[in-house]
């Protein structure tokens, strides 16, 4: 149960994942592809929620938060609809806390209307083991009771360890365990990209 899923993706603070240095990385999505994926997700959200009038976007810091902000902006541009956008830091709910030194918390900002009775769409950059999302669901439960929760991710790299799935996926990217996926965003890293590499000395 306590497998050290090193690149589950959504952790506060930018930078490469833990679990050892990586070899050379190649881009599997360039900036344009990232943008297209986000545009598509925005449209899908609008479609499947029939207008998203009670939706709330909550991004998981760090990069998920930026993605949520972008999705909100996208939806506003397309539909003229200002969705509440916020962030949900899951550090305190992680199941691997005791495996690493205590780490700094990310910002949690729940929009003014709260989450009770609303459709919460969690937004994260990479979906891997699913543990981060499990933690997010626990965190959400202590904040209120949404009528439903959906998940939007930029990349789904497989290897789920829990029964968790994404509703909206930017790119399905089958990977090996020993590979590492890193998302770069203009807001944190200067440019948009999704990179794939191999962990050095990977098991």
């Amino acid at each position, binding site marked *: 149960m306590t497998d050290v899923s090193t690149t589950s993706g959504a952790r506060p603070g930018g930078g490469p994942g833990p679990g050892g240095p990586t070899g050379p990385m190649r881009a599997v999505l360039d900036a344009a592809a990232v943008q297209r994926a986000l545009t598509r997700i925005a449209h899908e959200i609008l479609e499947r929620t029939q207008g998203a009038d009670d939706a709330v976007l909550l991004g998981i810091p760090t990069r998920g938060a930026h993605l949520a902000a972008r999705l909100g902006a996208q939806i506003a541009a397309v539909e003229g609809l200002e969705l509440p956008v916020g962030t949900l830091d899951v550090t*305190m709910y992680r199941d691997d*806390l*005791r495996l*690493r*030194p205590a780490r*700094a918390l*990310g910002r949690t900002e729940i929009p003014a209307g709260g989450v009770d009775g609303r459709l919460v769409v969690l937004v994260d950059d990479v979906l891997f083991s699913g543990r981060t999302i499990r933690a997010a669901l626990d965190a959400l439960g202590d*904040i209120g009771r949404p009528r439903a929760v959906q998940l939007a991710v930029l990349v789904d790299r497989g290897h789920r360890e829990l029964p968790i799935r994404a509703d909206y996926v930017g790119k399905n990217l089958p990977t090996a365990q020993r590979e590492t996926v890193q998302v770069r965003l203009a807001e944190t890293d200067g440019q948009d990209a999704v990179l794939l590499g191999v962990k050095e000395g990977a098991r």
Partner: protein
Amino acid sequence: MTRRHLLSTADLSADDATLILDTAAELARLADRPIKKLPTLRGRTVVNLFLEDSTRTRISFETAAKRLSADVINFSAKGSSVSKGESLKDTALTLEAMGADAVVVRHWASGGAHRLAHAGWIRGTVVNAGDGTHEHPTQALLDAYTLRSRLGSLDGRRVAVVGDVLHSRVARSNVHLLATLGAEVTLVAPPTLMPFAVETWPCAYSYELDPVLPKVDAVMMLRVQRERMNQAYFPTEREYARRYGVHAERMAALPEHAVVMHPGPMNRGLEISAEVADSARSTVTEQVANGVSVRMAVLYLLLGGSEPAIGTENEAGGTQPGATQAGATQPGGTQEGGAAR
């Protein structure tokens, strides 16, 4: 696991202190939620070992630990084995046998927390909740947090700490921490209540309050014990209040943005007038509220991970490390670290 404690603010680097304050800021938002609880310390046992009375601080720590889902055991001096003469060592061994992950200790003797941390009796983390006249690190942290939330960054800010500095653990902790965070501290007290060798402390000092007030961003009042009058530290309460008390006129002499702080409990009419205590400039009630968030941050950063995220490396207790290097060849040679400033 590396064993680290929070015994003194002198052990905190600027990064450590900032991390605590930032973490506290995030945790403060918990107060707005219906469920004010996080699962982070579930299954951990935090013992409040209060060998000196304090309801306020103990409740603050208890709330902090419970909000992180830790199990809390309260152990106070009155009516306990300690009041029947049990030694600190035996009390500590009992707590260790009960599996305490952390001991929050308030002790009437300076160095009490240090001894608990280093004597080799317990393996857990020790958080100093006030030891004699030595230090009260979480008080200083919540003071810094309060100042930061009222004034913004503390770098370059000027703070006056006024009152019985000699006997104040709050003053000592604040001097270290504020200096670390880049603030300039001026201690104000009558000469009898100023610590020996204060010139060596990282702050300025003055025997007069009025010249200091117009230049500071915050005034931190310290509680003065009336009994000190009988030990000739000052002649009468009236004279003390006149020379060192902050009343409405003195408050008016402060810059507009400046705040008045007090760690509590207050002697209304002695070091602080009722009018000042209840004014908008007074941060007294905020300090209390901020205490819970700050203590949650401290407990989380010390206990929440596989190893603490703050504090300095401390040797495992039990042995007498001091003798091996202390003054071995020359007097005053390299010494054991301990509570060095």
